[in-house]
């Protein structure tokens, strides 16, 4: 994307929503969708732009969530600081996992597997370690003060998560426009060729993993402040790994708005499925899975890409050339 204007416009429109809509149900839906979008925006940096498909982004979500919760509950640290520490912890975990995985040269299936395994190890450790509250989980005390980063009104929570999503949008925009972003895309398209041209692939992927980890961790930190509870299944469970990957893939991997579009569509479909079947478990995820397969099969660049694809089909010849390369 060349210009910053669409991002500013989208953020402005989304900021106005609570002024027009007062329904808590709608706001709650949007808060959760934006939280998933944020987790997906993290995945998108590494997976969408870098082509490194992580199947275990719960590593970051869970770490952010636990650090935020544990610092507050066990050490009495201010919620804002704990929130920041959670994001930093996500980046730090990104350094460790990324350094191990990329230095060992893991790609494709292997990288997907090792991220999955790390998430699983952390889940099991969190379910037995005393500091995480083991099987019981950690409960953050209800304290509806601004200083405790808890708000009585849904709208404030909404603006908080929207601000985080906006920051992630700007970061993605900056990455896309930067030299680093060009290296990252080069690594995605052909790692060996990128190396041959002097791109330090390991360092580039590591950088992407750190940014990615920090953003997805922020979603985990927010989860704790919003729901005031975390346990090992929420933090490191497969659900968040799947949703963090689902939203950018469906919305459009490697595009700025992909995760946001994907999250809104996925969550709306999920709610729709639950409405139709009267809250029967499982059906919403069946829909997600089918949409995932359909999107991969029909429009590899997601919903955002579909628009470009259709535009190309009915538009100029130059556009058609671009889409067929994508």
């Amino acid at each position, binding site marked *: 994307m060349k210009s910053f204007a669409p991002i500013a416009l989208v953020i402005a429109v989304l900021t106005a929503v609570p002024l027009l809509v007062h329904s808590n149900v709608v706001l709650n839906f949007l808060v959760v969708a934006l939280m998933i979008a944020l987790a997906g925006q993290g995945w998108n940096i590494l997976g969408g732009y870098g082509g490194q498909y992580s199947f275990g982004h719960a590593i970051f979500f869970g770490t952010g969530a636990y650090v935020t919760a544990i610092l507050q509950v066990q050490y009495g640290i201010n919620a804002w600081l704990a929130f920041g520490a959670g994001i930093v912890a996500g980046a730090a975990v990104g350094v460790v996992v990324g350094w191990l995985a990329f230095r060992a040269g893991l790609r*494709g299936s292997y990288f997907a*597997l090792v991220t999955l*395994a790390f998430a699983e190890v952390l889940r099991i450790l969190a379910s037995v370690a005393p500091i995480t509250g083991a099987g019981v989980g950690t409960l953050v005390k209800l304290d509806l003060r601004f200083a405790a980063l808890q708000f009585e009104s849904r709208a404030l929570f909404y603006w908080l998560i929207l601000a985080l999503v906006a920051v992630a949008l700007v970061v993605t925009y900056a990455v896309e426009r930067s030299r680093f972003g060009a290296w990252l895309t080069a690594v995605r398209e052909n790692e060996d060729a990128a190396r041959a041209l002097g791109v330090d692939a390991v360092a580039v992927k590591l950088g992407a993993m750190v940014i990615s980890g920090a953003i997805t961790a922020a979603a985990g930190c927010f989860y704790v402040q919003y729901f005031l509870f975390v346990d090992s299944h929420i933090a490191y469970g497969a659900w968040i790994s799947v949703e963090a*990957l689902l939203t950018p893939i469906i919305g459009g991997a490697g595009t700025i708005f992909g995760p946001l579009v994907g999250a809104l569509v996925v969550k709306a479909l999920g709610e729709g499925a639950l409405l139709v079947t009267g809250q029967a478990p499982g*059906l919403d995820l069946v829909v997600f*899975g089918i949409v*995932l397969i359909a999107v*991969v099969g029909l429009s*590899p660049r997601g919903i955002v890409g579909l628009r470009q694809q259709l535009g190309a089909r009915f538009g100029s010849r130059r556009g058609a050339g671009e889409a067929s390369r994508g």
Partner: protein
Amino acid sequence: MLSPVILIPALLNGLLTGAVYALVALGLTLIYGVLHIINFAHGALLTAAMFAAYFAFKVLGIDPYLSVFIIAPLFFAVGYALQRFVIGLASHGEDRNMLLVTLGLAVVIENALLFGFRGDTRTIDVPYAFQTIDLGFTYLAVPRLVGFVAVFVVALILWLIMSLTDIGRAIRAVAKEKLGAQLSGIDVAHVYAVTFGLGTACVAVAACLLMPTYYVNPGAGNAFVLIAFTIVVLGGMGSVPGAVLGGLMIGVVESLSSLFLGDSLGQVGIFLIFIAVLLVRPQGLFGANA
């Protein structure tokens, strides 16, 4: 140190459990060896096969050891169709897309089962579930012993298919050199689908062998599939003997580490091995051509 009285049965039990793991891993490694992707739907297919075995017993009254002869061919067909009409078509030949499609399939199958049968845990009662053989110094459970033998039978059948039949030769050709195989007139899409079918049939056999002593719920397969990933990586992706040996090793490691660390941490032992192998020797202990 623990006495041999505890240690030896733990070892033997580990070997017997490992045999079933090996069977699950066999299907996974076969698919990896030819298609070069990890099939993330493997666990969900295992669960589906376990449900099939459960209903074959509950509704039709067929013992799992007999229904395996129906369920395995049935799942061969399911696997064939999935690869031919879903994974193959949707992935446009891109590895990354195949990973996503198999993950999508896993989500669909697992949650369709959850939607259809709820989260209840189900078991079947067979007369031989608790039968044991007295070895003098320890007891061996009969169903696990059957599983142990079955692994080698399945591995032998696979080996025979691979080395003696035309389709086996075609599969090996595609695994080695896809383009060359295509140029010599081999239908690669068909070979992929047959391989996926064989891998799925392996999982169906494992499901039937598990049902007499295990339970089934919509998430039951996941526990096995993560272990199977470990085994496949340990044994070398695509290596059949590696899968069998890796399976037995992991069974023993799990059994011993549960003994020393307790049940939930015993699992961590497996994953730490997994991560260590991935990082240090991603081609696996027995794999040379990764």
